[in-house]
């Protein structure tokens, strides 16, 4: 039995009380004395040359305080990308400047080229309408293949083929992979699209710049998943504000899914405007702006080939991908399609030879970057779809084909052909568990029952793995990362024995305030109710890298454990002094320090009080205070894995797919709060089903965004989703972090799309519609109908 409020307990989320009663405090809720309002003027063409911007009439409008354009920011630095990728030919990737406001050219619909600051938002909006810009429209570059083929039309004038890099992973594998294909008895080939998604967090972005002319200090309130990373980018690259003169505060943040990792131009613009006006300047994004400015996700076009023998043993795997990065490089745009994608192409399988080629391409579309799963859903989708196709071609059972090719438990640690070392796992266990959970024996009867109602029933499988707990700095440094990916925590024990834990991770829905308190409670024996988790303010917390990549517990949680260990060590010193014993004889158990073999003990509270009232401390050997900071840099990624099963019914007359059941057997290693883990999987699966069946960002050939609102961008709603059954009992704890945790935030979004698509294909084939070998996501009714009738 887990301790109440400790590790393993399904403690209710303490933060939900304020979220559910409307007492959350988001950036848009913050109003500073004297604040002015910003509105951005955005391009309505996808590609154009800015010949001139006339702001004179707008400047005379009521309430207008200032108007800034790209010209005002041309001297400041560009927003950099955090990852430098090398091309196959050894050249470094192209990295055009990403300006605060567009300068010279506009490069996508929504690209901001002017900013009005006024007394009210409406005045700023009216003044934006009064700006006249001479923008010469250029042909839009939308389709990736066309972007690469036509060297005359360029998103960035200095980049002739619109290619950021041409990356091979691992280039040295290429010859062996090609040789394996040449000799293979069977090759399964599949061309597929991983559809572009809009992240759609419930809270749109917002930023307030607040410059203090007295001290010269800047403060930025913003919707960020990682305030220190934003501070670093703004300070060191974009604005040149000394880091110690800039505070970034990310208060309650209503979801991010990756889109709030990145530094956006609006943040720098409100800081500059605040300095210019000596007033706080506030900007709140509306939903339409969010659709055309928040970094999108996915958008790969891939050809994948799987070489097998006739018994289904995987011999080699090869992929070619075009990855859309949009008009500018967002901060992690280059890492997502490469090191978060190519390195996962071995999956949970023992395929001996793997080679991945990715060309990243500029287009006149919104920048694309990491979105829940980030690269790993793209890898999983390609692998799990081609395996299903291979099973059909070879006449093999998809369960058996996967099981036959899984790594076995005696193979760990396992070095994959694409550069990762899996520390532990048991893929057969999660697959077997899934089989128990779904009533495989009753499936044929369910198919018949559906058929009697005129529906086609099918089942789809996906066995996935991800690399998360991002990331070992030494490894990512070798791979081109410009940042470290450690995290940090300070455990501050107050004199009265309660605890503030200041963490570098950021919670924007994950439940850190609850889960982190459970970890510290368990570790220090202090009730969770006496532990406060502080995050999101660079003036309070130690330098941390924030939350994404299913890293918070694996990396920041490990830092918390290290800091708590230091607290225990310090507590032992204090206890030894107070109990007049040797430090070596002090043991810490159940929240008390005692002298081993005696009944002499001091409670945690007594130790804490003594630390702050050190009347008789031997000050040469014992410092007052009980506060410790730790930085934790993981030695490896963590490797959650699992088996997902989806059962669908297809209405062949209309093409409509209904998901009857969705079942997940996951291995997340140790679990701190099972309820929150289940919720994370539910949310991830909902997003994965959204990608598989409904969501798709679409542009027309002129680069106009066709899905700019919820009238055309189909977000899944509760009644679009099935009940989701989850299990995480097949746990193989992570071998290299102190909690044995692996991360669970992205799993659902990674594992679910291929399960859904495989299920639809299975339903069609069982229904005799055998000419359909693939349908690109989203499998909307019209696409499924068109495939059936094609």
């Amino acid at each position, binding site marked *: 039995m887990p301790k109440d409020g400790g590790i393993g307990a399904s403690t209710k989320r303490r933060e939900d009380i304020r979220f559910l009663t409307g007492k959350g405090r988001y950036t848009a809720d913050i109003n500073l004395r004297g604040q002015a309002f910003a509105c951005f003027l955005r391009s309505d063409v996808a590609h154009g040359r800015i010949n001139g911007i006339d702001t004179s009439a707008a400047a005379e409008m009521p309430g207008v305080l200032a108007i800034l354009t790209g010209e005002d920011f041309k001297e400041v630095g560009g927003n950099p990308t955090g990852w430098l990728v090398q091309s196959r030919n050894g050249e470094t990737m192209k990295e055009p400047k990403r300006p605060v406001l567009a300068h010279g050219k506009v490069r996508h619909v929504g690209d901001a080229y002017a900013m009005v600051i006024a007394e009210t938002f409406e005045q700023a909006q009216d003044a934006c309408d009064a700006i006249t810009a001479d923008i010469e429209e250029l042909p839009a570059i939308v389709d990736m293949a066309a972007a690469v083929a036509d060297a005359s039309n360029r998103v960035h004038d200095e980049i002739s083929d619109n290619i950021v890099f041409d990356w091979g992973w691992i280039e040295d594998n290429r010859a062996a992979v090609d040789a394996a294909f040449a000799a293979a008895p069977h090759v399964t080939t599949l061309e597929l699209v991983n559809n572009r998604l809009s992240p759609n967090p419930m809270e749109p972005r917002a930023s307030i710049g607040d410059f203090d002319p007295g001290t010269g200090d800047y403060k930025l309130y913003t919707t960020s998943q990682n305030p220190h990373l934003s501070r670093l980018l703004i300070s060191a690259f974009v604005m040149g504000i000394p880091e110690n003169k800039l505070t970034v505060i990310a208060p309650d943040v209503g979801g991010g899914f990756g889109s709030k990792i990145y530094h956006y131009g609006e943040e720098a613009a409100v800081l500059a405007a605040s300095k210019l006006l000596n007033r706080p300047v506030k900007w709140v994004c509306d939903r339409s702006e969010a659709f055309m400015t928040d970094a999108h996700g996915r958008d790969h076009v891939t050809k994948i080939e799987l070489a097998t023998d006739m018994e289904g043993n995987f011999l080699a795997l090869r992929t070619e991908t075009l990855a859309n990065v949009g008009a500018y490089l967002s901060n992690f745009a280059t890492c997502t399609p490469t090191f978060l994608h190519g390195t996962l192409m071995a999956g949970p399988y023992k395929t001996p030879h793997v080679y991945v080629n990715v060309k990243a391409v500029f287009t006149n579309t919104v920048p694309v970057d990491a979105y829940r799963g980030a690269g790993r859903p793209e890898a999983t989708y390609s692998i799990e779809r081609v395996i299903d196709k291979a099973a059909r071609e070879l006449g093999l059972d998809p369960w058996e084909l996967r099981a036959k090719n899984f790594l076995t438990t005696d193979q760990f640690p396992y070095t994959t052909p694409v550069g990762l070392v899996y520390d532990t796992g048991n893929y057969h266990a999660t697959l077997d568990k899934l089989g128990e959970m779904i009533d495989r024996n009753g499936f044929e009867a369910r198919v018949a029952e559906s058929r009697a109602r005129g529906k086609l029933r099918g089942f789809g499988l996906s066995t996935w793995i991800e690399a998360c707990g991002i990331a070992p700095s030494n490894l990512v440094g070798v791979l081109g990362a410009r940042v470290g990916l450690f995290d940090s925590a300070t455990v501050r024990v107050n004199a009265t024995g309660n605890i503030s834990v200041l963490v570098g991770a950021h919670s924007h829905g994950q439940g850190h305030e609850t889960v982190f308190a459970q970890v510290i409670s368990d570790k220090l024996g202090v009730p969770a109710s006496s532990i406060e988790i502080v995050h999101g303010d660079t003036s309070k917390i130690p330098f941390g890298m924030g939350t994404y990549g299913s890293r918070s517990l694996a990396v920041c949680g490990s830092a918390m454990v290290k800091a708590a260990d230091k607290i225990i060590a310090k507590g032992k010193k204090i206890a030894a002094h107070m109990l007049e014993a040797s430090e070596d004889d002090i043991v810490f158990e159940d929240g008390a320090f005692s002298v081993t073999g005696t009944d002499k003990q001091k409670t945690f509270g007594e130790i804490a009080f003594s630390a702050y009232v050190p009347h008789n401390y031997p000050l040469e050997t014992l410092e007052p205070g009980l506060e410790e900071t730790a930085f934790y840099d993981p030695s490896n990624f963590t490797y959650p894995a699992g088996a997902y099963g989806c059962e669908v019914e297809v209405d062949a007359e209309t093409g409509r797919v209904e998901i009857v059941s969705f079942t997940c057997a996951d291995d997340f290693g140790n679990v701190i709060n099972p309820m929150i883990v289940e919720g994370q999987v539910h949310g991830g699966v909902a997003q994965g089903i959204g990608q598989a069946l409904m969501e798709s960002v679409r542009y027309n050939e002129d680069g106009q965004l066709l*899905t700019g609102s919820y009238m*055309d961008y189909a977000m899944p709603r509760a009644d679009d989703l099935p009940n989701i059954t989850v299990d995480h009992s097949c746990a193989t704890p992570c071998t290299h972090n102190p909690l044995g945790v692996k991360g669970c935030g992205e799993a659902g979004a990674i594992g679910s799309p291929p399960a859904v698509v495989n299920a639809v294909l299975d339903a069609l084939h069982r229904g005799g519609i055998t000419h359909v070998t693939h349908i690109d996501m989203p499998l909307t009714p019209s696409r499924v109908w*068109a495939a059936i009738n094609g």
Partner: protein
Amino acid sequence: MHNFELVKPSTVQDAVAALAAEGAQALSGGQTLLPSMKQRLAAPDVLVSLTGIAEMRGICLSDRGLAIGGATTHATIATEARAHYPALADQASHIGDPAVRNRGTIGGSLANNDPSACYPSAALASGATIVTNQREIAADDYFQGMFTTALDEGEIITSVIFPIPEKAAYVKFAQPASRFALVGVFVAKYPQGVRVAVTGASEEGVFRWAEAEAALSSNFSATALEGLSVPAEGMIADLHGSKDYRAALVKVLTGRAVTAA
């Protein structure tokens, strides 16, 4: 949203007078107009709210059928029409979400005549009469194409009279994002014959499928549709479905509506 003036008259006469002002625009439930104003796509100077006019609200049974006030909300129709005209109540109960149904009105929807709205199909399939402050207009004459109706400038729908059929059903196939009708088919069987009205599908807005009406009038069964087809020409093609797809859906949904009726 731009600034505007709001007036809320309590009689049709006052509303008509207010609508004569420069830049005036009638406001019923506002479920289309207000989002357009927020997007700054519409900027009326004066909004004349029709929801304060008591005589335009509510439902009553008359010898001509079910009379529904123009400012009656979908939620009211969903509950109060159920005993008299269940297919109409059912249609109303699936428009938008609860917030939309509690604000949106039948008069507003019919005046807007969105090609994907639900009510035009019910009105046309029922041979309803659109009653305005000036005249009565037969549904067959009222719908004149996408967002186009027989209404004159400043003319207000005060009520709609639905003859009650022997049998009827509406089947909506929702556009996945908006949940408007990608295609919606309303089938109503009257002693004089069957009427079939289709919304969401045509570039010309709601229309009657005459062939199906003829076939169903002699045999009110889904099998009567065998061999019939709707031409793809003139259907809407967009992100959510091709012309062919919509044409195919018209037939499938008509059959399902007949079965459900």
